[in-house]
């Protein structure tokens, strides 16, 4: 179902803008921005490009195991996760995603909550 979202909203051409805006929002967020402080920019961009592409059913699959490893050392809370969720939802909305489609993406990201919040396991 969400397979189509990546293509529906214009493929990489549009998704790249979403990733960029999302990246800005995340860095600017006082709640979670610090988690990304000090992370190598290309690495972070790479991660977010793939993560968002995966959420929208783009040409990548991001395994839960990989998400777990990427976030294991961060000690994230549910509130942090909610903030990310909110920022993503805002970004998508600004880029003309319909509320229904945003909901679909939110379901996708919600499905990854436990993987992203899992700590200490690597």
């Amino acid at each position, binding site marked *: 179902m969400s397979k189509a979202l990546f293509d529906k909203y214009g493929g990489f051409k549009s998704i*790249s803008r979403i990733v*960029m805006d999302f990246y800005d929002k995340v*860095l600017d967020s006082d709640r979670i*921005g*610090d988690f990304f402080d000090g992370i190598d*920019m*290309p690495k972070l961009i*790479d991660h977010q*490009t793939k993560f968002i592409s995966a959420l929208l059913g783009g040409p*990548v699959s991001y395994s839960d195991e990989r998400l777990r490893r990427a976030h294991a050392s961060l000690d994230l809370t549910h509130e942090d996760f909610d903030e990310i969720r909110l920022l993503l939802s805002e970004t998508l909305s600004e880029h003309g995603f319909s509320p229904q489609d945003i909901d679909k993406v939110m379901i996708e990201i919600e499905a990854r909550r436990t993987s992203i919040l899992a700590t200490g396991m690597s």
Partner: protein
Amino acid sequence: MSITAINQQLLRAIGVGIAVVRGDDLQFLFSNGPFAEWFGKPEAGASLQEVLPDIDVDDVRSAMEQTGRFNGEISVKLKRRTLVIALSISSTDAEASDLLVVECQNITRIRELESMIDSYSSMVERNTRELEREKERVERLLLNLMPRTVYEEFKTFGVVTPQLYESVSVVMLDFVNFTKFAANHDPTVTLGELNDIFTAFDRIAEQFGCERIKTIGDAYLAVAGMPEPSPDHMRAVANCAVRFIRYLERRNQSHQYKWEARIGLGTGSAVGSVVGIQKYVYDVFGSAVNLAARLQAFANPMCVVAPDSMKEFLVEEFHLDDLGKQEVRSFGEMRLMRVNPGIELSRMTGRF
């Protein structure tokens, strides 16, 4: 032009960081807003080295001497973001006082976008590779189901036109007591045996210009002269047939399970086509196929039986035994012969 005048002009250049340093001691004379934002406002008398510690002053000097311009990149951390600033230092053309202009452009976005494109293209490339592999797998699978020329036609036009081949030959092999063997052994054993033997047959068939069309249980069907016409199709099937037998004889010497086969050869016309739309099967029909199937039943274990009509094409290479006239169902009375390896092949193997 006074510094104040320059100052006013530069300040209007929004987004580009500008500073002016003295050529001799590299002390700052002026800097604008964006410059101060990225590197801090240079204090009076501060030198280039103090404000931009990542810049190698010697490099700057030598580049200035050689080309009159220094280009470099500096990373600055601003809040959480690492900015990438492209730096360009050039001398003004003021002949009296040697002044250097430091131009700074924020190229962070460009770098970020480059990273994203890298990331995306690596994804796409990996996907392309996977698709390519998948395509090869599918192609290999389809090539097992139909001859390559048929596959090419299928790929280009999406359909395969049934084609009549006037003159082809068929080799049909059937194992003796296969049903009994299958009943007495674990299916995996039976399958393993068939797989092993048929794989060897496929190699023999390929080597002698035959193409395996299908296996039905323990029956093995190969053709020659289609889809590529060949004047040698009768000899091709006869060569395959005697080598199938020879292979089995050799195999029986070393393997636990002994296999015996009957082989019939047929020649005549046949139609080849893909049957089915969802489940493709390339199959052949026609008198050549029927004949081979009938004659195989006439063969004693480990023997090859062919119609007498193939005689003139086989007589030189094979040893033929007349079997007399026989009543072949739906073909009527027909003279048959047994096909044995010729002298040359017998000598080569030291057998028969």
